[in-house]
């Protein structure tokens, strides 16, 4: 069998986990084995029944309530326990913070390799996987060895899709063998995000600024433009390193990934690490003095000119249009 680790939030399976099950089902069909799901914590009970629609024929539920407060090594212990009892040929998790973390623990405990952030998986003695490098700017084809193949699936690399089960339906509850040290690291408390303005990943319009903005004050017109369009301001890594903007505004491989209807990139050259963060943007409008800047090869529209001249001009044009 092929097993997928299911993450859930507020009684709902997360989208990346459904995508992982979808890839798992396709893999299971190719190998001719059933797809199983591992679900952890008492709060996960409501998600169990819905998994059948995604081709899962066996659910393994570690339903103890002390697993509700996330503890990475304890979640990994659940996976290790499942492997010992049910002998899956592969375990897949979503390539999320938690998925990558849990699988790293599983690999470490069992002395097995882990392929993180795969987009494609081909079965075999060794699996042939394609995985992301450089945050997605580069692909790697690799052979994944090990008695049990451990891998994570890049979120949003494929669409979650319902599908048939290989037959049967069973839910098996189990209490994994846990050690005290599996709880040395456990969430001790949580804090909600401060409410307020639209967040960068959700914004429909993002106005990004790079070194070409010139100074922290230079972001004033960008703020105005963002506000007019109901969007938010983002920035490149150079800007954060210079201390012009907080790191929470940073778009890119080591910052936020955005997916707006339009990304207005001002004075940004377009390093690959920045562009992977903007890959989800439907359209990119560039304002840059350099017509040869790499970002133009990612852009739909460009104005060749100075940010400090062009952005205020757009702002007043929008104001005029609004006043009419």
């Amino acid at each position, binding site marked *: 069998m092929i097993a997928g680790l299911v993450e859930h939030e507020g009684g709902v399976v997360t989208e990346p986990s459904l995508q992982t099950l979808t890839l798992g089902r396709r893999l299971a069909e190719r190998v001719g084995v059933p797809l199983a799901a591992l679900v952890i914590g008492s709060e996960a009970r409501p998600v169990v029944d819905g998994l059948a629609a995604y081709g899962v024929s066996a659910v393994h539920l570690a339903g103890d309530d002390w697993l509700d407060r996330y503890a990475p090594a304890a979640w990994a212990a659940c996976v290790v326990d499942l492997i010992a009892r049910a002998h899956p040929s592969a375990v897949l998790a979503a390539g999320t913070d938690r998925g*990558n973390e849990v699988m790293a623990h599983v690999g470490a405990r069992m002395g097995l390799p*882990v392929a993180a952030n795969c987009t494609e998986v081909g079965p075999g003695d060794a699996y042939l996987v394609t995985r992301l490098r*450089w945050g997605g700017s580069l692909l790697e084809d690799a052979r994944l060895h090990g008695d049990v193949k451990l891998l994570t699936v890049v979120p949003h690399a494929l669409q979650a899709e319902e599908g048939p089960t290989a037959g049967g339906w069973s839910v098996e509850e189990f209490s994994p063998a846990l050690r005290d040290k599996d709880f040395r*690291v456990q969430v001790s408390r949580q804090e*909600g995000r401060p409410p307020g303005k639209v967040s960068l990943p959700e914004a429909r319009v993002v106005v990004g600024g790079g070194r070409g903005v010139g100074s922290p004050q230079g972001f004033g017109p960008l703020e105005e433009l963002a506000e007019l369009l109901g969007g938010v301001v983002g920035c490149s890594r150079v800007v954060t390193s210079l201390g012009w903007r907080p790191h929470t505004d940073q778009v890119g491989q080591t910052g936020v990934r955005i997916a707006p209807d339009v990304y207005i990139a001002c004075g940004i*050259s377009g390093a690959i690490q920045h562009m992977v963060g903007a890959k989800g943007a439907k359209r990119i409008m560039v304002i840059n003095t350099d017509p040869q800047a790499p970002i133009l090869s990612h852009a739909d529209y460009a104005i*060749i000119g100075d940010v400090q001249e062009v952005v205020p001009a*757009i702002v007043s044009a929008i104001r005029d249009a609004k006043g009419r």
Partner: protein
Amino acid sequence: MDVLVCVKRVPVTGGRISLTEDEQDIDTRFLGFTVSPHEECAVEEAVRLVGAHGGSSTVLTLGPAAAEEQLRDAMAMGANRGVLLEAEGPEWDAGATAAAIARVIEGHRDAGVAYDLLLFGNESADAGGYQVGVRVAHLLDLPCVTGVKQLEIVDGTAVARREGPGGFEIYEVTLPAVMTVKEGINLPRYPSIPGRLRAKKVTIERLHVERLEQGLEKVRLRLPQGRDKQVEILGDGAAGVERAVEILRQIGVMPS
């Protein structure tokens, strides 16, 4: 407190990546090198912690002889010592890297140097395996928190904050421990000139390590198929504004 920071030498890529002919590596003939962004923050965090609590910071890397450059950079930022695990040739997978690092840490412990805190980046910029720190923690039987965005040490306990689903998660862990950090935990300083001069004089501990069998074996690298877009130039300077506003209207983001 004594802190060990592990860093990786990676190329400074610009607007595009090109590959070597054998498709095994990035063509770095015209590129400089740096450490991964998360790890640059790990170095800064170590220097700050030692500044606040006393002790020493050691920076370690596994890589080619040329990775001495990254150790010197870290020492110019304020790290006290450097350890280079010299390994030429093809890159190492996470399991082999962690095994080599853990062995060195055990060697230091046997020689009387026990680290209170081991810092890593959450993931390297290039390989992005998300696991070396976790694997080292297991080999040394230490607790490990990943993705740390804020770190405080209070009476031998590390209070770590990281982003989780729906907000922030706070972990409290007794030292010694492993932490993997993310960019944003701090703003790394630029190395000072006196720092660079000081770093030049430090003797680096060099060890040769043998490459182990690879559990994740690279076959080849590929560039993702670019949807090379045809950009529409809207105009020069203010001349492009009218058309830009028209497009924003078409997209449906203009204020009503």
